[in-house]
């Protein structure tokens, strides 16, 4: 054994090179098989939606579909805004100011993904202990700013990317 000192020879090199090329080849085949399950171009094409908000009365909300998910658009009254801003950040499981959840100067408009951050159900409006939304599936309570207050949901309802095209139209996405 000691006489024939083990050293790297041609065969070892060929083995290593073959395994490496083989692994790269397998990876190159597996990745398309995995990635084909990601959202396709048709799904990605649905990325933006424009909504007319001129008919919404203060205190009322509408629900529109964006990327297969409901978007809540609520025109809040000044009392509701005041209520949302009176909450102490320490009382929130996922602390976030109401100001950070709306567009500057458009404080009455709350635009958020109407999807419970627990397991994806659609919360019911004007329900729950905090004058906001209540998810019937597993009992998460959200306040008038869509922030989680009580229940199993880990975070506030998500604010999607959106902008005001003009004073009566918003573009989501």
């Amino acid at each position, binding site marked *: 054994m000691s006489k024939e000192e083990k050293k790297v020879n041609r065969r070892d090199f060929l083995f290593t090179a073959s395994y490496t090329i083989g692994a790269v080849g397998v990876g190159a085949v597996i990745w398309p098989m995995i990635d084909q*399950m990601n*959202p396709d171009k048709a799904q990605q094409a649905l990325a933006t939606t424009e909504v007319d908000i001129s008919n919404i009365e203060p205190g009322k909300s509408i629900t529109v579909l964006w990327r297969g998910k409901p978007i809540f658009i609520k025109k809040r009254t000044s009392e509701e805004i005041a209520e949302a801003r009176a909450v102490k950040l320490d009382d929130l499981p996922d602390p976030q100011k109401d100001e950070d959840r709306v567009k500057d100067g458009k404080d009455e408009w709350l635009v958020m993904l109407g999807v419970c951050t627990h*397991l994806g159900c*659609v919360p019911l409006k004007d329900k729950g202990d905090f004058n906001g939304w209540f998810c019937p599936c597993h009992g998460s309570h959200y306040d008038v700013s869509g922030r989680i207050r009580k229940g199993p949901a880990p975070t506030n309802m998500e604010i999607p990317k959106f902008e005001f095209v003009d004073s009566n139209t918003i573009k989501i996405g």
Partner: protein
Amino acid sequence: MSEHEYVPKSKAAKWFNDRLPLLTLGAHLTDYPTPKNLNYWWTFGGILTFCLITQIVTGIVLAMHYVAHADLAFASVEHIMRDVNYGWLIRYIHSNGASMFFLAVYIHIFRSLFYGSYKSPREVIWIIGLMIYLLMMAAAFMGYVLPWGQMSFWGATVITNLFSAIPLVGDSITTWLWGAYSVDNPTLNRFFSLHYLIPFLILGLVVLHIWALHVPGNNNPVGIDIKKPSKDTVPFHPYITIKDAFALLVFMIIFAGFVFFTPNVLGHSDNYIPANPLVTPAHIVPEWYLLPFYAILRSVPDKLGGVILMFGAIFILFVLPWLDTSKVRSAVFRPIYRQFYWIFVFNVLMLGYVGAMPAEGIYLVLARVGTIYYFAHFIIVMPVVGLLEKTDPVPMSISEPVLTGGAEPSLARKINDKV
């Protein structure tokens, strides 16, 4: 295994068997020495095979009429119910068949738990069985999505969102599973594909399950190792086949009772409302066979924690053979464990009940107690009782307590009581 080598009688059969020994396999399955004291709890293996074949046959037929598209799926299921000849019968057999499949598999699993069938040398049989059980749950869940009713849609939403609890990559995984930004047509399409695939994976695992079973042979109600073949065994055919056939007949009567008299009692009426991504039903419940795990999920006031405990409740079963420290297999001879066993059965039934109730008040308390006990049974009770318990004397052979009943009459009676 039969001692003698099988030789086919006819020349043609011998020619074939020399090239592919299928007839030898058939002879092995026929002669297979089986413990003579197997009770009716042992007939569920055959019943489960029947259930699998029923689901595959009815499923293939339904796929000839079903359309896996979000706009057409609901209508195509109604088309099966109203227009297709005997479509209502085939669909009701398939949908109730899933429930009957789970009923049988739960009895089969609890049989194993009582008689210690998961213990050495049968751990691999047990683990393959659990893999079958996991695949059954996946197949049943995806199958329930296919009619594209309200419960289909929201059940799919809740279950796929479980994966979003995974830190960092959760949302990407969920989107990948959906093939969209919510449960949508791509999701339905892939679920149909996988729902068609999984039964055949199960079929393959069933072959391995039976193969692994035929290495050590069946466990039995007294849970002792027996010599095979011997006075303690009978050939599989005709002794066990006829017993299995009788049990299967009784099972089919119950099955037919559901199909013909209350075909929708195990389903949820909301699934006859087409899927609507804007409205969540007031009260989402999974199918009855998933309720205990659903109760565990909801009992934890933390998203990730709930998901971990729910999957943990299933995966802890995989290490069960190593958590049970008792040398004695059958609970017939384990007076303490036997009581904990029935508490455990009751606990699982209770979890199933609270899983169907709203997650609030007393139900939430019961779910939490039940969840803690569920895990305590495996992590504390099984190892500790196995070490401390004084077991009853175990007979030397199956024939002993029956034939020499005078020596241990109480023992013989105890065994007869259990069967």
